[in-house]
C-alpha cells in the first residue's frame, strides 16, 4: 500500500499517475469501505484518459466510481434527446466535458454588435437548455467546464477587446455561466479557464494530442485536470478536508521563536522572507474566513508560541485557532488531541510542517491524515495548498463564514465547564435555547450540507442531494425537522436534521445527523421530543430506527437504546434496528434546552 499511496503525493507526480495508472487502480480497488457513486461523463472531445485518471483520484479518496461515457462528441444529443441508457444508469453526477473546440457560434468579422450579442445568447441558450433538461430529467448534480482561452488569436491583442475576438467571446460566455451557477445550486463550474492558464496554454493546447487523438488538452495536463475535477466531486460527496494543522517555527513565521525571541522572528515587511511568511499567514486567515478550522501543533513552550501571534505584524491571532497544542509531546499525539478537541475525523485534516522528519513521522503514525510535501521553501506553500483542491466546497454558506466564531465560543465553553463538578449543572449554566422546525426552502442548502458532511453523529450515513432534500419538503408522508441551537456564548446555527418516513402507523427514521460542534449538549433529546410530538399528531404508534455502523459513527451506536428503544435485530455496536412504541402520555426527555417551535 505504501508504494501506491506515495503515488498520491501533493503536489502530484503527473507522469507517474499516467504511467502506472493500471497498477495504482488495481491496488486501490483492494481497499474496503469504498463509497459507490455513479458519474456520467458526456464529452465534446476524447475523455478516455480523463476517466481513467479521475477514477484513481476518486478511489484514493474512498470513492468507487461507476462511469457512463457518451459516444464521442455526443454530449449535446445524449442530453437533449430520449436516452434510455443514461436514464437506466441514473447518475449521481453528470460531468459535461466541453472546451472551446465545442463553441458553435464564434463571431466572424462580418458580425456587428447585435449579431455578436445574438451569437452569445444562442451559445448560452444551448448550454442552459442542457442544464435545465438534466435537472428536470435526472435531478442530479451537474458539473461542466467553463471555457479556456483559445489556441490562436487571429486578431492579435485585439482578440481581447474587439467584439469579434474569440478571447472576448469566451470571457462573455464564461461570465454567463458564472451567473447561472450563482442561482442554480445543482450546477457547478469546473474552472478550466483558470486551470489552463495556471498550467500554461502552450502546454494545454497540445496540437499533436488534438490531431492524433482528439484530446482537447495535452495528455500531460490530464492529471492536474482530473485532480481539479475530483476535488469538486469530493466536495459534492462530502469528502473535502475541514481543518488545517499548522506547525509554527519556519512554517507560520521565519526562525525559531524559542531561540530567537519574538522580536527576531521573520514576519511583516522587513525582508523578502518576512513578506513571504506574512503572505502565507494571510492565505491561512482567508481559509479561516471561508470556514476551514485552524489548529496548531508545535514543539514549543506554550508562552513562546502564543507570543508569536502577539507580534505586531502577525496577521493571525491566537484566538484564530480552534485548538492550540504547543508542547514537547510527539506531534502525532498532539494531532489526536486536536481531533478530539475540535471533534472532527483525522481524515478530514491536513498537516503542514516545514520539517521533513515530522512530516514523515506523522504520515507513519497517523496514516489517515493528509501531509502535503510542502518542502522548506515558504514561497511555494500557498500555491501548493491552493492547487491541492483539498478544501474544495460547493458553496460557502453563512455557517462556513461564521465557523471560527463557533469554535472560539467553544473554547470559552470548555474553560467554563471546568468550573462545574456536575455536567448537568454545566449544561444548565449554558442557558441553551433551540428552534426545531420542519425543513423549509430557506435552509435547504445548509441542511443538505449538514447531511453530506456529518460523519460522527450520523445514524445511517445516507446522503441526500439538494433536490432530494427539496422533495422531502413537498412530501406529505415525511416528517423532516431541522434544529438550531444557541447559548449564552453565541449562536451555533443550524446544527441538526432528522428525516422520517411514515408508512401506515410507523415512522421510519431514515436519517439523523448532528454537527460535531454541539455534541453532548442534550440536543438529541429536544429533537426526539419534537419528533414524537409531531408523530403523535400524525397517528404514529411506533418509531423505527436504524444504526448503520461506519468507521466514524460509533458515538451513536447506542443512541436508540438511550432514548428508550428496544433492539429488534442486530447487536449493540453493530448494524442494528430499533423500535419505540410511542406512549400516549409521552414525557419529554429534554431538560436543559428551552425549545421554541415557532419560526
Amino acid at each position, binding site marked *: 500500500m505504501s508504494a501506491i499511496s506515495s503515488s498520491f503525493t501533493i503536489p502530484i507526480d503527473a*507522469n507517474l499517475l*499516467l*504511467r502506472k495508472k*493500471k497498477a495504482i487502480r488495481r491496488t486501490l480497488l483492494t481497499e474496503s469501505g469504498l463509497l459507490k457513486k455513479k458519474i456520467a461523463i458526456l464529452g465534446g472531445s476524447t475523455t*478516455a*484518459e480523463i476517466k*481513467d485518471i479521475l477514477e484513481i483520484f476518486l478511489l484514493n479518496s474512498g470513492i468507487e466510481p461507476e462511469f457512463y461515457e457518451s459516444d464521442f462528441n455526443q454530449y449535446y444529443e445524449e442530453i437533449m434527446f430520449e436516452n434510455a441508457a443514461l436514464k437506466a444508469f441514473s447518475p449521481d453526477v453528470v460531468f459535461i466535458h466541453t472546451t472551446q473546440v465545442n463553441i458553435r457560434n464564434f463571431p466572424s468579422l462580418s458580425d456587428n454588435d447585435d449579431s455578436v450579442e445574438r451569437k452569445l445568447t444562442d451559445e448560452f441558450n444551448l448550454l442552459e437548455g442542457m442544464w435545465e433538461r438534466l435537472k428536470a430529467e435526472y435531478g442530479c448534480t451537474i458539473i461542466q467546464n467553463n471555457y479556456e482561452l483559445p489556441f490562436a488569436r487571429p486578431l492579435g491583442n485585439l482578440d481581447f477587446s474587439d467584439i469579434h475576438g474569440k478571447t472576448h467571446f469566451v470571457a462573455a460566455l464564461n461570465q454567463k455561466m458564472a451567473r447561472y451557477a450563482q442561482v442554480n445550486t445543482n450546477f457547478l463550474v469546473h474552472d478550466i479557464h483558470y486551470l489552463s492558464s495556471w498550467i500554461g496554454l502552450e502546454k494545454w493546447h497540445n496540437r499533436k494530442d488534438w490531431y*492524433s487523438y482528439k484530446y482537447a488538452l495535452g*495528455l500531460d495536463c490530464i492529471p492536474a485536470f482530473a485532480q481539479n475535477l475530483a476535488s469538486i466531486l469530493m466536495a459534492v460527496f462530502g469528502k473535502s478536508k475541514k481543518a488545517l494543522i499548522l506547525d509554527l517555527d519556519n512554517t507560520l513565521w521565519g526562525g525559531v521563536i524559542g531561540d530567537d525571541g519574538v522580536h527576531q522572528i521573520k514576519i511583516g515587511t522587513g525582508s523578502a522572507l518576512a513578506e513571504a511568511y506574512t503572505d502565507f499567514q494571510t492565505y491561512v486567515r482567508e481559509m479561516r474566513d471561508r470556514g476551514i478550522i485552524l489548529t496548531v501543533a508545535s514543539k514549543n513552550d506554550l508562552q513562546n508560541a502564543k507570543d508569536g501571534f502577539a507580534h505586531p505584524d502577525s496577521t493571525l491571532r491566537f484566538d484564530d485557532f480552534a485548538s492550540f497544542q504547543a508542547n514537547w509531546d510527539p506531534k502525532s499525539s498532539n494531532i489526536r488531541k486536536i481531533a478530539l478537541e475540535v471533534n472532527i475525523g483525522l481524515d478530514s485534516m491536513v498537516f503542514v510542517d516545514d520539517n521533513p522528519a515530522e512530516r514523515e513521522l506523522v504520515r507513519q503514525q497517523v496514516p489517515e491524515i493528509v501531509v502535503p510535501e510542502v518542502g522548506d521553501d515558504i514561497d511555494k506553500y500557498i500555491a501548493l495548498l491552493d492547487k491541492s483542491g483539498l478544501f474544495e466546497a460547493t458553496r460557502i454558506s453563512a455557517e462556513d463564514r461564521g465557523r471560527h466564531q463557533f469554535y472560539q465560543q467553544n473554547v470559552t465553553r470548555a474553560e467554563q465547564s471546568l468550573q462545574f463538578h456536575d455536567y448537568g449543572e454545566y449544561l444548565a449554566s449554558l442557558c441553551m435555547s433551540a428552534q426545531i422546525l420542519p425543513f423549509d426552502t430557506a435552509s435547504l442548502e445548509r441542511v443538505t450540507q449538514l447531511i453530506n458532511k456529518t460523519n460522527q453523529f450520523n445514524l445511517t450515513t445516507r446522503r441526500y442531494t439538494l433536490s432530494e432534500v427539496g422533495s422531502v419538503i413537498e412530501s406529505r408522508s415525511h416528517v423532516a425537522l431541522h434544529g438550531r441551537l444557541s447559548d449564552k456564548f453565541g449562536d451555533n446555527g443550524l446544527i441538526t436534521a432528522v428525516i422520517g418516513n411514515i408508512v401506515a402507523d410507523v415512522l421510519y427514521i431514515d436519517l439523523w445527523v448532528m454537527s460535531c460542534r454541539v455534541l453532548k449538549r442534550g440536543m438529541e433529546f429536544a429533537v426526539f421530543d419534537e419528533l414524537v410530538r409531531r408523530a403523535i399528531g400524525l397517528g404514529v404508534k411506533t418509531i423505527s430506527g436504524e444504526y448503520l455502523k461506519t468507521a466514524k459513527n460509533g458515538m451513536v451506536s447506542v443512541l436508540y437504546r438511550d432514548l428508550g428503544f428496544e433492539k429488534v435485530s442486530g447487536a449493540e455496536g453493530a448494524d442494528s434496528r430499533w423500535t419505540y412504541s410511542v406512549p400516549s402520555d409521552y414525557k419529554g426527555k429534554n431538560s436543559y434546552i428551552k425549545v421554541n417551535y415557532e419560526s
Partner: protein
Amino acid sequence: MNHSALLDQISIVIADVLDIDKPVLGMETTAGSFEGWDSLAHISIVAQIESDFGLKFTLAELAEFSAVGNIVQAIERKRNGG
C-alpha cells in the same frame, strides 16, 4: 544493427503501462500483441516512450507506429539527428 538495448527500455514502458510482467519484444512485435494493448494504452505507451527517451515524435511519425520496429527506427533517427 543491434536494437536489444532500445527494445529493453521500451519493454519496461510497456510493462508499466499495461501492468504486466516485462514482455520480450522484437522489431516485428505489433501494437496489440499483449492483452490490454488497445488504442488507449497505445497512446500512453508512446507518450511514456517520449518522456523516457526525452524526445517528441512528429505527427507523421505517430501515424506510422504500428510495430515496435517503427518506434525503434524513429528513436534512432532522432538520435542520429535525422
